[in-house]
């Protein structure tokens, strides 16, 4: 059972529907006990960083997540959920994130249209079971104005996308995985990625 962290993070339904299609059981929850008993955690998220981290802090979720991750529980962050894993975000100010990964969240430079919206290809930086049955440089659906940068650890980069700059698309360090795009909205490729993720962690 996957615990999807419920903190009023916008459109969670698409993610639940995608997991249902894959017959992966999930529950939307903010109950620490349920999260503790879950086999893995997904941190979804759309919207503003500061509101998201404020809700997580208020619900005590930041601590719960840190503790579960230290105990080795797999966690997947999607879009803003992934950005929340980092130390600092510079979205409308400067905000402290959960701090599971080194690095910061910075605005995509205005040399391209922002938000980065639509289907872009991702390029592999290292082999991963996540790419099982996935063609070379697949298209996935992005929608974001901020991206991982700063002093993030380059060996955590599994795959990236080009949009003005190199955008970390999939990152992984131990039991922590992040996807900047929306696998739940990325057609068959996205569903396959979610399936591969689930198989990778089980």
């Amino acid at each position: 059972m996957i615990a999807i962290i419920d903190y009023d993070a916008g459109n969670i339904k698409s993610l639940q529907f995608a997991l249902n299609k894959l017959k992966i059981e999930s529950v939307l929850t903010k109950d620490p006990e349920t999260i503790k008993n879950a086999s893995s955690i997904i941190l979804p998220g759309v919207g503003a960083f500061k509101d998201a981290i404020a809700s997580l802090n208020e619900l005590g979720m930041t601590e719960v997540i840190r503790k579960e991750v230290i105990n080795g529980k797999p966690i997947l962050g999607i879009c803003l959920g992934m950005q929340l894993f980092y130390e600092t975000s510079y979205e409308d100010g400067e905000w402290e994130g959960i701090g599971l990964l080194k690095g910061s969240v910075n605005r995509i430079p205005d040399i391209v249209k922002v938000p980065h919206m639509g289907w872009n290809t991702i390029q592999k930086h290292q082999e991963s079971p996540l790419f099982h049955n996935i063609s070379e440089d697949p298209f996935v659906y992005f929608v974001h104005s901020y991206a991982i940068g700063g002093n993030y650890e380059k060996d955590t980069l599994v795959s990236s996308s080009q949009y003005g700059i190199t955008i970390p698309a999939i990152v992984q360090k131990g039991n922590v995985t992040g996807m900047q795009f929306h696998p739940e909205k990325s057609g068959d490729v996205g569903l396959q990625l979610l399936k591969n993720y689930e198989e990778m962690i089980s």
Partner: protein
Amino acid sequence: MLAKRIIPCLDVDKGRVVKGKKFKDIQDVADPVELAKRYNDAGADELVFYDITASNEERDIFLDVVEKVAREISIPFAVGGGIRSIDDINSVLRSGAEKVSINSAAISNPELIREAAAKFGNQCIVLSIDAKETASGKWEVVINGGRKYTGIDAVEWAKKGEELGAGEIVVNAIDTDGEKNGYNLELTKAIADAVNIPIVASGGAGTLEHFSTVLKEANADAALAASVFHYEEIPIPKLKAYLDKENITVRR
């Protein structure tokens, strides 16, 4: 490379798609969920649903449709029509839509864009602009299906929309809409060049060339159309193959 997007648009009235008559091989041709699935499978990059009724009881039918669509397809979709408040936006996003498209409500209350972008993130707030040419190289924002002029310059309104926090702009050229003589390149380009957010061209698609022209020459990021898709005059796989041949990056 970021792909240019192809977006079929479905007008929904009382839970049924208007103009969705010509598919012989699906049983319920006017069922928005069936059509959405079909477009999803054909390789559409995104969908837009417009609620063209928007009375209260019909609103619930529509929200039910939105949720069913979200359940069936795994590509993003936007919802427009009758969006007037933060509550309206919340209910369509909660039903499973990725984006909301705001049109006339933003004219009477521009702050709605700002509030919505702050609350839900600018990526899900689409400003839809209906524009009519009033002089050469001048377009005015119109509402009520093009019947009412607002006195607002369309390009200025687009800039204002970006500043308020819209994450994308749909440019509906009322003059070319339904004519199938091509998108309004001049208007689309004028708006695309004035802002730094993605632009969706809308109104006038009739041929394969119309799509390639607006995507290449007018700096549009996406092209929206309804009848050429609904009546199967242009199948999406054929369109994508054509655009690919024209050296336009598309998802295939």
